[in-house]
């Protein structure tokens, strides 16, 4: 039947696209951990908004890439970040800081990076990351 075939075709395309997106995100995160681990790991204090931990401190923080026009950032990501009250969130405009965005392989916004000691990225989330996931990543170190 025509409708079943169309549903099947749409389902297969959706599945293939989802897998391709997951694979892309996995690859980008791996490259970002490699590149950001190699480059100078600190972030200049004049870049972005929010206080950064002192260089050499072991405090974890969240690096948050956004843009002026990103809608999911405002409607969902920022409320989720606000729930992590005990953690510093450093907000960076990905279009204004292309160098930094490239270092973390930011291909979509929002992107959130859990940064560990010595500025090493521990986890990278491309697209909306719920508060529970970020909390888990921060707890896992």
């Amino acid at each position, binding site marked *: 039947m025509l409708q079943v075939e169309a549903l099947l075709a749409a389902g297969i395309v959706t599945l293939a696209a989802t897998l391709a997106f997951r694979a892309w995100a996995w690859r980008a995160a791996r490259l970002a951990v490699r590149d950001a681990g190699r480059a100078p790991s600190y972030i200049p204090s004049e870049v972005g908004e929010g206080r950064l931990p002192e260089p050499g401190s072991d405090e974890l923080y969240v690096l948050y890439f956004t843009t002026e*026009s990103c809608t999911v950032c405002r409607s*969902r990501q920022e409320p989720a970040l606000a729930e992590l009250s005990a953690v510093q969130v450093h907000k960076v405009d990905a279009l204004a800081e292309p160098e930094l965005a490239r270092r973390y392989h930011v291909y979509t916004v929002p992107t959130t990076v859990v940064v560990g000691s010595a500025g090493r990225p521990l986890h990278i989330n491309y697209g909306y990351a719920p508060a529970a996931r970020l909390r888990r990543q921060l707890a896992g170190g």
Partner: protein
Amino acid sequence: MVDHSALRVNQAGIVTTVLVAALGSALTWKLTWLIPALALVLLLGTLRPELALFKQLYFRVLKPAGWIQPQPVQESPAPHNFAQGLGGVFLAIATALLFVFPVAGLALALLVAVLAAVNLFFGYCLGCQIFYQLGRVGLVRA
């Protein structure tokens, strides 16, 4: 200022219309006319916000009746309009395909509904990703 409730009503309207058209076409093929109609609604709504059918339904009926609470967010409406226009363009292509290759036409319309549903339920917005990439190469002011 953008009211996110209006956007969600719009997304829900797109999902419902496409599902009715695609599944209902098993009973009568006439229901596939809903697809070009929806394409027209989305494209007109992108050019003239006062012609956006589902948003007007929200602003004139659902909101005044108190059935849906407003959810205003301080931001630019440009990316939302871009996404809506993109949906309209894809539904117009789906319409053309319905005449020559009906399975592909229905499948493409269903994909537009899938993207609207993913945005509605999971907060993932493909339009946002496209908009960011276009902004990065300087094609739009993102």
